[in-house]
């Protein structure tokens, strides 16, 4: 009897809970004002060359370029903890942390920011994309991670981000995996275990490094007890910076690598020239077609949908 009561309570609660899965990537996510996403460097504003920002950075992520003609400032997102101290210290406002969560890159050097632009990750080669594009199994290895990056990876499995709907899954054995997703600076004591895990993944395989520690050693960069990131031990295909990166930053990187993000969606980032700041690409496909055909039927050009 008592079980029946409990079951009805569970069902009632299920209705109360509603549907919680985010509409990412169809809809552009919103972040609070203080969120520190992709940094932008405006070289023109950095005229005085005061170098205040260099001295406040905890991980020496900011460097002055070697170009003799013009001083350039570069920000290495692979080292950056996104603490925002440099932006606060700059009297000219040459460094700004935007609300843009897209940070992932294929190459270590692509993480260097010298302007308002960033070179984001591109998709895997066709054969790899064919293999992994719709089903990617990853083995997570924490190698000195503080558990913040690990917690964000765990969060990807919750009902809000629901990683499973993209065919991406964390698996228990490297032998069942298509690749490794590594957190932490790779401590000396984890070197062997990580190497064995890498070898156990059947080829072809990919490696993803998550967080400042796994890319550069992060806040622990001065310590000798680690290798200074995953790339020192295994070839890395995707770098996702942050301390820790937001789950959507990780998801964006994974989908980019799999070629699952339509380029059109990228255009929504900048304040849209379209009315309401929202482009039509964010509508579900069916609705878009329906709208387009209706407009056509009314004898107007497609462009007018946007106005």
């Amino acid at each position: 009897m008592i079980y029946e009561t409990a079951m009805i309570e569970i069902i009632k609660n299920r209705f109360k809970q509603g549907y919680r899965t985010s509409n990412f990537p169809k809809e552009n996510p919103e972040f609070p004002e203080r969120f520190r996403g992709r940094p932008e460097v405006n070289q023109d504003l950095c005229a005085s060359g005061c170098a205040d920002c260099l001295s406040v950075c905890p991980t020496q992520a900011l460097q002055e370029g070697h170009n003799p003609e013009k001083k350039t400032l570069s920000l290495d997102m692979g080292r950056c903890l996104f603490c925002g101290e440099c932006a606060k210290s700059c009297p000219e406002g040459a460094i700004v942390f935007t609300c843009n969560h897209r940070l992932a890159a294929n190459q270590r050097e692509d993480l260097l920011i010298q302007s308002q632009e960033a070179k984001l990750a591109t998709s895997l080669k066709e054969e790899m994309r064919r293999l992994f594009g719709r089903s990617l199994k990853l083995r997570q290895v924490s190698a000195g991670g503080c558990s913040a990056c690990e917690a964000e990876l765990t969060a990807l499995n919750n009902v809000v981000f629901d990683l499973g709907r993209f065919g991406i899954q964390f698996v228990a054995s490297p032998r069942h995996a298509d690749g490794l997703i590594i957190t932490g600076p790779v401590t000396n004591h984890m070197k062997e275990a990580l190497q064995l895990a890498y070898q156990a993944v059947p080829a072809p395989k990919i490696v993803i490094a998550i967080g400042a520690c796994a890319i550069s050693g992060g806040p622990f960069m001065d310590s000798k007890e680690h290798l200074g990131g995953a790339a020192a031990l295994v070839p890395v295909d995707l770098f996702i910076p942050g301390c820790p990166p937001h789950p959507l930053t990780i998801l964006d990187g994974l989908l980019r690598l799999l070629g699952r993000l339509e380029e059109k969606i990228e255009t929504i980032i900048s304040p849209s020239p379209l009315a309401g700041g929202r482009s039509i690409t964010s509508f579900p496909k069916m609705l878009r077609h329906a709208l387009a055909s209706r407009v056509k039927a009314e004898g107007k050009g497609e462009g007018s949908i946007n106005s």
Partner: protein
Amino acid sequence: MSSLSRFALIRNGESLKVSQIPEVPISDFRSDILKMASSGKRLCALILNGNGKKPAGLLSVLADDAAGKLYLNSSEPVSSYQALTLDLPQAHLFEREIYENSGITPEEHPWLKPVRQKPADETVFFKEEGEEIHEVAVGPIHAGIIEPGHFRFQCHGETIHHLEIQLGYQYRGAEKLLRDSTRFSLSIAESICGDSAIAHGWAHCRALEALQRMNPSLKAEALRAILLETERLANHIGDLGAISNDIGYLPASAYFGRLRGDFLNILMLISGNRYGKGFLKLGGAAFDIPPQMRSQTLETLGRAKRHLKEIGEMFFGEPSVISRLEETGVISQKVCADLGLVGLAARASGKDIDVRQDHPHGLFRFRYIPTVKLTTGDVFARAMIRFLESQRSLDFLSAVLDSLPEGDLAVPGGKFLEERLSVSLIEGWRGEVCHIAISDSEGKLSGYKIIDPSFHNWMAVALSVRQGEISDFPLCNKSFNLSYAGHDL
């Protein structure tokens, strides 16, 4: 009480001149600690004394939780001494650590193996022999998304006779970094243990503030307390979800998991980071909570409180959930006291200790959070404590956000005073986070010690599974959810 005179007395978050700490011969040091322990004082820390100089002595910090006092004493330099562990089991890991870091030998220590600086395969494990006895080795890499550690079980059929936990895989050299780089130390402290960024960051701030007599405003203290309690909520509720998942009750796992995100998002709203990294600042806080943000947060909290109650009642109202959690992974009150457990694990085993209540600091001196104590010491108790404490924290947050004190966001810092030692305790969501900082004659940091609650509590995980089944291990482990990085540093 004559031994009391051989201790220096401070309170949580204060500093004293190093010369004020009595230095006594090791035999007196040892007997004084035992005397104090027999009158109910708890060993907060037993560490190497001195500024890395050799030969070194030992330093102890004993907590009188009932009176809110901390007692310190130190020994003359030694190369070996009679181990405390046989008389005072809560010293066992401290003594192993001292031996590993300095070579000072605690004679007759029953289990003198490395703590974190050697790979596990180079250490000797306890081994049981006999018919049908078998060994199960797990890790360092585990099945889920979790930090690395090695677990070795001695089993008879499905029954666990003994579990030995060997950590050290996460060793990053955090204490050395904190000692050597004071300027950017906060970003390191925030990453000692990522799910306790506020607890460790705050403990670090207070340890350094005490060395330079900085007094953050009550407003800054209130803001810090708000972040700490939000961190506690995120972790407690996340753990309830993980426990639901481990027993296969997926609706509750999904709902708790989603609810946890609400608190991470509050941290992000206030600090820009889902773990509160970047919020703290030496002397105060980097971010204020303006009125509009306050009302937005209060609204989220009100909703979360309703949802927590609904989901919690659904979870704990289910008889099959209760029968799975009750009497699983029991830590008796005696074992709890012997091991010197801290935090929610201690409160689940009948020991009413909580830094916020026993050694109050900042806003906790004025706003009291009632502590919750249960006595059964099983997985149920540790889950229920989380549910009840979450509700207390929600009440606290609503009250503080309603009447945030006025004051400066941060006060300017000075220089470290010379040759002083500070002790800072914070009740993180797992339990007592302890940071000890020491300055030298030039006003530089010469010593830094971190004691995560996991350091006290890992042994309890090993003991909780004895006579249980191997299949109970994930659930027992999750009910403690200790930090590997916090232990390995």
